[in-house]
């Protein structure tokens, strides 16, 4: 098992290195002078010169990539062309907002999806089960951007209950939470249905397993069986699914952040793309890729720990 974990982490690192290198090549492929492309029209000759020197743009591509990777590894993501601060400082402002959003979305997804799935499994084939089933599929289908816009239409522009813009950083924890509700729902709601179905399916499987039947035979109360034993086992797959799902949640977060003008990686990237602020764009993609690689690696490891058969199934 230990060997697998090491192997999996190693693979994660290799994938990350390849992903960053590919991104670097893609940007290099942009028409025009790479320094101008990376730094934009506002860059002064001095900034361009420093950039060329740092990445050795006159050297062969592999050398450039190694240099770039090396500077990234040292935490040097270049300079934000707008603020003249290191890109890392800009990311440090926005990254927590996105992580907050992802965490809240996961909380909503798990907090609603797991109980719903659980109840659907217990009351299998009841009207409740069918309604949860139909709603799950419907909610999965609707794109996050549409949910974000409807949230805004109904709860901000219409009823005025929830804020339409920003993250409410200046107003304390309550303000932060207040601003988090709609974006988090936009990102997380689709996963409620997904998790409900997942939990329902694995609960049904677990509830019919031998040891649960044994527990019943020992006279344990049904509620205790369902929620203490079966659920604990049935929830495991949701952990790994959420880990993999972070990539899609990051995409949804882009829309939620733009619709609600909320600071975060997505909004930062969107603005940087419009402003042709390449160092920030690249930094944001790197951060997002890092989040995704870490979460998929972790979820694979967790999955392997929970379910030893899994790693063998890989090959």
């Amino acid at each position, binding site marked *: 098992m230990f060997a697998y974990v090491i192997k999996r982490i190693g693979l994660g690192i290799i994938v990350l290195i390849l992903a960053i290198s590919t991104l670097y090549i893609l940007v290099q492929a942009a028409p025009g002078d790479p320094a101008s492309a990376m730094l934009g029209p506002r860059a002064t000759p001095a900034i361009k010169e420093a950039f060329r020197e740092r990445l050795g743009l006159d050297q062969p591509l592999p050398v450039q990539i190694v240099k770039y990777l090396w500077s990234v590894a040292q935490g040097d993501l270049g300079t934000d062309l707008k603020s003249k601060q290191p890109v890392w400082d800009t990311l440090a402002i926005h990254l927590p907002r996105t992580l907050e959003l992802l965490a809240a979305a996961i909380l909503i997804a798990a907090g609603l999806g797991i109980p719903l799935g659980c109840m659907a499994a217990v009351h299998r084939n009841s009207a409740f089960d069918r309604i949860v089933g139909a709603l799950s599929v419907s909610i999965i*289908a609707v794109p996050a951007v*549409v949910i974000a816009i*409807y949230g805004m239409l109904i709860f901000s522009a219409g009823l005025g209950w929830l804020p339409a813009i920003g993250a409410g950083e200046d107003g304390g924890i309550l303000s932060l939470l207040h601003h988090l509700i709609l974006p988090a729902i936009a990102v997380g709601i689709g996963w409620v249905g997904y998790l409900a179905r997942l939990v329902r399916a694995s609960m049904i499987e677990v509830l019919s397993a031998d040891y649960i039947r044994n527990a019943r035979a020992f006279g344990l109360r049904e509620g205790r069986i369902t929620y203490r034993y079966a659920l604990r086992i049935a929830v495991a797959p949701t952990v790994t699914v959420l880990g*993999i799902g972070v990539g899609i949640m990051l995409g949804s977060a882009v829309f939620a952040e733009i*619709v609600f003008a909320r600071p975060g990686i997505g909004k930062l990237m969107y603005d940087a793309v419009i402003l042709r602020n390449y160092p920030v764009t690249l930094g944001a993609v790197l951060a997002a*890729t890092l989040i995704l690689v870490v979460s998929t690696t972790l979820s694979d490891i967790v999955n392997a720990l929970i379910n030893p058969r899994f790693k063998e199934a890989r090959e």
Partner: protein
Amino acid sequence: MSQVAAETSAPVVRSANGMRRLLRDPMGAIGLTFVVLLILSAVFAAWLAPYDPTAINVPAKLQPPSWDHWLGTDQLGRDVLSRALFGGQIALGVALVSTCAALGIGAILGMAAGFGPRWLDNGIVLVFDTVRAYPVIILALAVGPIFGAGIVTIIGILVATSVPYYGRIVRTSIISAAKSEYVEALLAMGMSRTRIVVRHILPNIIGPILILASMDIPTFIAAEAGLSFLGVGVKPPTSSWGLLLDDGYKFIRQSSWLVIAGSAPLILATLGFTFLGEALRDTFDPKLRRRI
């Protein structure tokens, strides 16, 4: 990461009375109806659209739905229904082309990896893992402007990021099939590997992969709309559901109709395709799991 792939073994499509069973499932019936209507409306958009989708009529701007304009008008007085119909061509076109291309390329790479030499397998899997390390929308947002916003760029990004998904499924299926006694017997009989793959393995896995692909269509439709909404996709005057959504969003306070009408085709399409995909899966291969 390979969760989906791991569950796609030993697939047999029982399609005898599948259609009847599909239609008996209310979800399947609704989904199929939506999808058929959408396809027809997109194909015949030019005949069905009551107006030229680009015809500007400013005095009639931002009107709520009426007999003249079933879905109302936008900020330039263009007929939203007509724009939605033509937007359907883009949405379905992008989804269809992306799915087919991703499926085709993915299948070829997956077969090469699954039946090829070990080094090729490792290489291809590494490429797959690398591509899947990028969050799709974020990658599109970053790379889109480099290659210029437009349909081709969108399709390119969707295909590039989806190939690994299909490739992995095909690869896993082939690896597990290759271990079967049946294939070992065929090999022992001296049949070539290519022939085994094409004649004996592929026909068995194509059904479930098609079902999975059908479940991906709403994802592609949503991605095109989302990227156009962000301004890195389809550009005006071409009509796109994402642009309709963008107009609706911009005028959300002036007219809630525009955002409701503008989002309706997108919602109906994603619902329709999802319902159909789920029903297909439930009917033919309940063990398949949706892509995440």
